[in-house]
């Protein structure tokens, strides 16, 4: 199983990466939305993509919209992992095609439980 982690913080990518690796995922990383799109083209469709919201160059929200505009990624599972916790932000992310939403900070269990909601892991 493949996971793509898009976050501008290396530490955060490491934390999430460690959790997912433990669950048996092969990890790919990107530091912003543009890199994320590049990575997608390189690695093909991951089983899950975890995306931060606030990042330079291209935000997670823009990434989400860009990905959902391409039909080849229709079935790709996308989860926002962000410090943004306002209701309208969660609602907008879901409307734009996010499948789940994690509010930072989180624990290992949170990630596992959300993945099981999505039917991955």
């Amino acid at each position, binding site marked *: 199983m493949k996971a793509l982690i898009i976050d501008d913080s290396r530490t955060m990518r490491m934390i999430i990466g460690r959790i997912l690796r433990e669950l048996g995922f092969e990890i790919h990383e990107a530091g912003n939305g543009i890199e994320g799109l590049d990575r997608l083209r390189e690695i093909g469709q991951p089983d899950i993509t975890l995306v931060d919201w606030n990042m330079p160059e291209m935000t997670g929200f823009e990434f989400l919209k860009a990905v959902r505009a391409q039909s080849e990624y229709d079935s790709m599972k996308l989860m926002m992992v962000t410090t943004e*916790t306002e*209701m309208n932000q*969660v609602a907008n992310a*879901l409307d734009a095609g996010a499948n*789940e*939403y994690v509010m930072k900070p989180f624990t290992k*269990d*949170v990630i596992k*439980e959300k993945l099981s909601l999505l039917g991955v892991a």
Partner: protein
Amino acid sequence: MALSRNDFEYVRELLRTECAIVLEPGKEYLVESRLCPLAQRLGLGTLDALIAKLRREPVNGVHRQVIDAMTTNETLFFRDLHPFETLKKTIVPELLQRRAPARTLRIWCGACSTGQEPYSIALLLRDNFPQLFGWRLQLLATDLCRDVLERARTGRYNQLEMNRGLPASMLVKHFAKVSADQWQLREEVRSMVEFQEMNLARAFPPMPSFDLVFLRNVMIYFDTETKRAILARIRRVLAPDGYLFLGCAETTLNLDDSYETVTLGKTMCYRQKAATAGAQTF
């Protein structure tokens, strides 16, 4: 501030007699970490002083607070997920048919903690079974611990609790953000659940017959004798064709053979064997 052996034994005995919770030897650290903060809060300073006070006085409010502090209340929305999927896919549709004549559905969560379990059931019913509108739906949620019941009634959860097991779509649809770190379940869902204090280790109060009983992740704390007694009492309040749900690490096997296991996908639940259903005398 180490706990003396005598004091540990005292707390063990208190928990055993008041709520059947078994505290294994070696769990001294648990008593210390949970009761030291309480001793401070009560202005007693040390754990020694708190236990001395408990010993001096008949069982009262302070003993209750100690028991509350010693219970493990961890829970989350849609815990283990598959039991709720089974409810949605199989069990509730089946019950809707069988209960159609009376249009009544009764569900009991016997160790509801801060409410995530009964509210998960309420959310599931509300979002998936609009046919239930107009039915008499009773969702009773009980726990021993008053603190958790009080929190459950408010339907307020912090960020970590909101992150745990709750689908984001339900967050958006059924909660309001009420402060930087607090969300509250909307009144129309909260009002579907009735919370009451109840000790499973004592005789049950008069109760109707329930179609579904959830008793998850609580029997693990009890000894065999208590588990047997509780399973026997549950038989009297479980409808002959109703289902009992236990936690993943819990079972009726080798405890009470008047239950049979029903396996539905990943979910194991329990039902009374036809011959024994409704035939108990106590």
